[in-house]
């Protein structure tokens, strides 16, 4: 994990882009939730025929809810990060301008009256950078979490396939359809999370 942005000038754009891309994840998570409802209805109708599928539908509901929550958190954090990186950029700019004024006023009668102001600007910039790093760490943690959830989803889809294969013929196709949709959604979310991570690491 990277501890800080390499280039704040691009970083605030990347962070805002991450927030925008996450809207797709939210749609996928809502699709999972919908499929989970379908699966639950199917399991209720099929009764003992697909009893072993019930824990899987429970997992899907949990996965969808967790993903929706995580996406909202990531979205909030990404927007905060975008704002912070812009503030960091401004504070770096102010710091540079005060430093330049200090250098240019070395021989000025009242040049020393700038010292405390320039120091304050430097402190503010340092604080902004620290804050930016904290938010960035938090965002990476959230992306880690969403990726690990999707890995778990992959394991569950493998198990679900086996369960679907053993179900009664009349339910097999429907259950396999649900598994395929879950797998696709999980892969898409994983792909977007990975893309977001790369955007932030650029």
């Amino acid at each position, binding site marked *: 994990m990277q501890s800080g942005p390499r280039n704040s000038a691009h970083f605030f754009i990347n962070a805002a882009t991450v927030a925008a891309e996450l809207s797709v994840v939210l749609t996928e998570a809502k699709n999972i939730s919908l499929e989970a409802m379908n699966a639950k209805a199917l399991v209720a109708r099929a009764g003992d025929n697909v009893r072993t599928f019930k824990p899987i539908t429970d997992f899907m509901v949990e996965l969808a809810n967790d993903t929706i929550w995580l996406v909202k958190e990531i979205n909030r954090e990404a927007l905060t990060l975008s704002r912070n990186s812009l503030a960091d950029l401004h504070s770096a700019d*102010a710091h540079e*301008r*005060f430093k330049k004024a200090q250098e240019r006023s070395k021989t000025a009668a*009242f*040049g020393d*009256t*700038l010292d405390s102001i320039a120091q304050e600007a430097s402190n503010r910039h340092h604080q902004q950078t620290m804050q930016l790093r904290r938010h960035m760490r938090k965002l990476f943690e959230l992306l880690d979490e969403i990726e690990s959830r999707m890995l778990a989803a992959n394991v569950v889809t493998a198990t679900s396939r086996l369960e679907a294969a053993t179900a009664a013929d009349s339910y097999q196709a429907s259950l396999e359809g649900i598994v395929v949709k879950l797998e696709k959604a999980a892969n898409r979310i994983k792909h977007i999370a990975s893309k977001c991570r790369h955007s932030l690491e650029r």
Partner: protein
Amino acid sequence: MKVVKLHESRSHEWLVFGRDEERPSKIIDTNQYMIKTTNHAIMLDPGGIELFSAMLAAVVHHVPVQQITHLFASHQDPDIISSLGLWDKTLPHAELHAPWLWEGFLRHFGCNSIKYNPLPDEGKSIRLDEVELQFIPAHYMHSSGNFSVYDPQAKILMSGDIGAALLPDGAPLFVEDFDAHVDKMRLFHQRWMPSNRAKKDWIRRVRQLDIKYMAPQHGAIFRDRDVVRFLDWLDELEVGTGIA
């Protein structure tokens, strides 16, 4: 940054800052003014963000930075006051005198600590120690909320964009040949000033003042007789020519 003293008396000094050699290219040259009284200083149209470092460095040759307690912005343009966010960090206890009309806009430059003193349309006066400064309405000259500053003791009128000229680098700070200078001002006034009625109103107000120097925010400063010549020239000039 070139600094010239326009006026010096027991009560106060007028300084003009301009002709910055390190100014980034493609940025219009500007004149910034500072009035220094016994305990205070006010900066008039302190300039754009790109000029901030040079201005701050130049200013502390003349006053401790904490003595700058007031800022004035004639209007909202970036070359006038886009440095506000940085002055806000430099002078958190200062007051900004600027048209009421632009408050919501000027705050976009960053005005978290500085106190915004909105100037009413009819203008007002303030006193810094023994010095009275009058904010003279100059609306639509060129901005819809616009003021000039007049100092009756020093007889200096800071006219903002009125009297501005687009001059080449290294041009003299004072008008030396009025007739030749007219060519450098004509297009600016015709295109930037939108209203003949507003122009007449400003000229009427200003003709009542005793002016030794008329100090614009761009170009060269008018002295004595050239002030009247300028007013006569502007009076005759058709403005608002952008509409073909």
